[in-house]
């Protein structure tokens, strides 16, 4: 079994209205140094079975490819979002 994390954010080229609102709120709290705040989604999951060998670099690459597929198909909308995949060692 492997543990994986997926982080999804709006593309840098797209205005993140939610992020801007939160950033302004932090400024109002006195944290004026905060900038370029981007909101996103965080997904964590455990994966087992489907992949023969998850150990070693090869298994990890294969799992990363599969997670990328999951992001493009469902977890993220590639038109507006970027995603990042992390696999726990």
């Amino acid at each position, binding site marked *: 079994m492997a543990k994986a994390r997926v982080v999804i954010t*709006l593309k840098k080229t797209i*205005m993140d*209205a939610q992020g801007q609102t939160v950033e302004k709120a932090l400024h109002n709290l006195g944290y004026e140094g905060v900038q370029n705040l981007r909101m996103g*989604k965080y997904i964590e999951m455990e994966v087992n079975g489907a992949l023969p060998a998850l150990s070693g670099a090869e298994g990890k690459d294969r799992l990363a490819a599969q997670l990328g597929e999951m992001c493009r198909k*469902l*977890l993220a*909308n590639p*038109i*507006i979002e970027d995603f990042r995949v992390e696999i726990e060692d």
Partner: protein
Amino acid sequence: MPTATKMRFGVVIFPGSNCDTDAWHALHDQMGAPVEYIWHQETDLSGFDCIILPGGFSYGDYLRTGAIARFSPVMNAVTDFASRGGLVIGICNGFQILLEAGLLPGAMMRNVGQTFVCKYVNIRVETTDTPYTRAMQKGAVLRIPIAHGEGNYYADAETLAELKRNDQIVFRYCAPDGSITPEANPNGSLENIAGICSRERNVMGMMPHPERCSDPLLGSADGRLVWESLLER
């Protein structure tokens, strides 16, 4: 007001749809058209001429609006139906589902003002070359309600150029006099876009709710023009 048409409508119900009954009421009670409900697990759409994906919060809007609904069994059938030229109209959440399914180009984002907007707006008819707007006048202004938190339409520059080139922008948010202004844009949509159609023109998505204004008792009957366009042939 029964019409002589034989066009058969189907209204899809996803878990979380909540405008299905309004659509049924508009078509059945107001337009006198034959209409049936279609459960989201249905895979056979034979016998229908026009499928309506209604508004609501399918699958709780989890992940992204429409993201889960697009994988409902019925959506494979809707995709096949559309590819054979069948008429498909997505209203509000239905529009979001069509975008996620790739049946229409672009994506929907959170309203720029961060709030759920529920009010009457004005939209301008940008093209009458669709089965949904042919009974309208180009440039006409319709008074019609919106109710959504994620209606901020986005498309990249290339997609937008293509939409324009192919006359696929169907409705734009406008001022009462028909002018397209930032103030008339309720959600930050690119170029005030409120509705678009597919290149083949048989699939249309719109954020405003024609089914909620098809009865003069409800304050506006401008939505009837969509149904009249469909029933005209």
